[in-house]
């Protein structure tokens, strides 16, 4: 290429680059204003003694006091335990049920397609409405769940009134709402596995179970792991359904991390402590995200 042509090309690239920056600018400005600025603001708040109900401005720098107060707080400790229990159980169940349902729902017949459409409905329902709906379903006296159980001769528990059963209820709602997500992702993963692999395995005499264990699981392992981590993060952050299902109750029985920070910040308006609690939560989430990210990169370079 002649020098003049190279120069022209270079000038055009630089000219293009200005366009591209202009394309990216509005989104960047918005993200900085609505995400990064509040994040920094929240880091600042975590070191301040500020309760909005008693003072319109901060009452001074308190160092790491807020963090110490949060860590010693009984409700916070309970919220951490609840979050771990709810998310751990719910996401494990979702992975198992979602994967199993995906295998059952493979196919292109009209019935199977209709079934798939029905099964993904909970995904599009607002979590606040899902919580509301299950609040009625699980009402121990007037709800449908215990009424149906009574036909099986089972005296249903006081789902939302008993501390342990309330945790079970939260898990049930999480599983009901998001198992379809796992189903969809596993279906997409399955469709990317070439049929020939299954066919040749079948010719070699492998059972369906064996071809699941030796073909599907290894091929989908990165996808399954990522889905697990995505679901874990999302489940930890969920607030809406707990809000309408139990309001954190009875007592503090179903307070999760997100719910605890929500009430601390937006009900008691203890801004300093809420910010400190959210940064403790954040450090954990960031760690999990780094794992997700690292896995994605590794997976992509492996492909």
């Amino acid at each position, binding site marked *: 290429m002649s020098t003049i042509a190279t120069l022209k090309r270079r000038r055009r690239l630089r000219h293009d680059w200005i366009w591209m920056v202009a*394309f990216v600018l*509005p989104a960047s400005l918005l993200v900085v204003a609505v995400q990064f600025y509040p994040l920094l603001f929240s880091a600042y708040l975590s070191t301040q003694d500020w309760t909005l109900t008693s003072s319109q401005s901060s009452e001074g720098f308190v160092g790491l006091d807020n963090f110490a107060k949060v860590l010693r707080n009984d409700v916070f400790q309970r919220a951490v335990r609840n979050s771990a229990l709810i998310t751990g159980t719910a996401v494990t169940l979702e992975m198992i049920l979602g994967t199993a349902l995906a295998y059952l729902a493979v196919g292109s017949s009209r019935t199977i397609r209709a079934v798939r459409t029905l099964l*993904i409905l909970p995904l599009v*329902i607002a979590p606040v409405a899902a919580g*509301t709906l299950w609040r009625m379903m699980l009402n121990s006296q007037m709800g449908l769940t215990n009424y149906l159980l009574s036909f099986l001769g089972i005296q249903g528990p006081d789902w939302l009134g008993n501390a342990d059963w309330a945790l079970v209820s939260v898990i049930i709602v999480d599983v009901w709402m998001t198992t379809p997500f796992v189903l969809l992702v596993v279906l*997409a993963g399955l469709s990317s596995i070439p049929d020939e692999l299954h066919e040749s395995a079948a010719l070699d005499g492998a059972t369906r179970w064996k071809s699941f264990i030796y073909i599907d699981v290894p091929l989908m392992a990165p996808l399954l792991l990522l889905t697990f981590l*995505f679901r874990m993060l999302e489940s930890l*952050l969920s607030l809406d359904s707990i809000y309408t299902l139990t309001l954190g109750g009875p007592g503090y029985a179903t307070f999760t991390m*997100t719910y605890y920070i929500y009430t601390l*910040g937006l009900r008691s308006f203890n801004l300093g402590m809420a910010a400190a609690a959210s940064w403790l939560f954040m450090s954990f989430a960031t760690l999990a995200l780094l794992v997700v990210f690292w896995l994605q990169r590794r997976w992509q370079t492996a492909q």
Partner: protein
Amino acid sequence: MLSGNLAKIAAQRSLRMLALAIACLVVLVPLGYLVLNSVKPQNEMYTIPPIIIPSRITLEHFEAAFNNPRTLRFLINSLTVTGITTAVTVVVSTLAAYGLSRMGLRAGLLSFVVFIFLFIRFYPRITTVIPYFLVMRQLALLDTVWAVIIGHLGITIPFVTWLMLIVFQDLPREVEEAAEVDGANPLQRFGLVALPMAAPGVASAAILTAFLSWNEFLIASSVTKRQAQVLSIAVASFVTDRGVQWGPMAAMAVIMIVPMILFALFVQRYLIRGITLGAVKG
């Protein structure tokens, strides 16, 4: 032998259908129960044992809801917030994703940008909600739909930019390069060449944004008091009201979810594509 195998296959098939039927019931029964409660007369609502199928269908709860001017307000606010959020997100994010994918950024830098998107999608949002509330108070935007819209944009723009980045990176570059040789400027290459090819992806992104904005509760509840409240808050407000108001509560939930279920059935293909795109390709 052969008939034995056939019997086994038939048995497996019916077991599979049974399992799927149970799964469908688990999804449909609670939804049906919600709808039944929304049309159940007041005097059949709180009986023990419960009356599941109402003896007659009444629309009194819906009438009461729509006779209350606030319900209309909620509905209009929800439509405004969802409409503006979706329109702005699609325009701003599609442009940004195209710019990012065609800037010729080094791989390391681009993956850093992708990490930022992932981070914004999954970090505990509650962290920024409280400062966001303070900022909106400072700007005197509290209890306006703008506070809700800007808050939603803060979530949807990074998310959709991330999705569209995946879409644009998958497009073949040859046509754009040909257009470039023919003297098309970047805006023309984006609008006339890349965008039509990416149209299904744009549709998926728009649909996901609309669902996210319509269903969102945390931000909407933190920056609104009365005027700018949306449907998610109306539904949630029944929890704290004294006494049990199942009829109105069920009616409000139905008003909120039925449009979205119909919409989902209508755009199912794009919705599923959007949901799996981010998870499968990242």
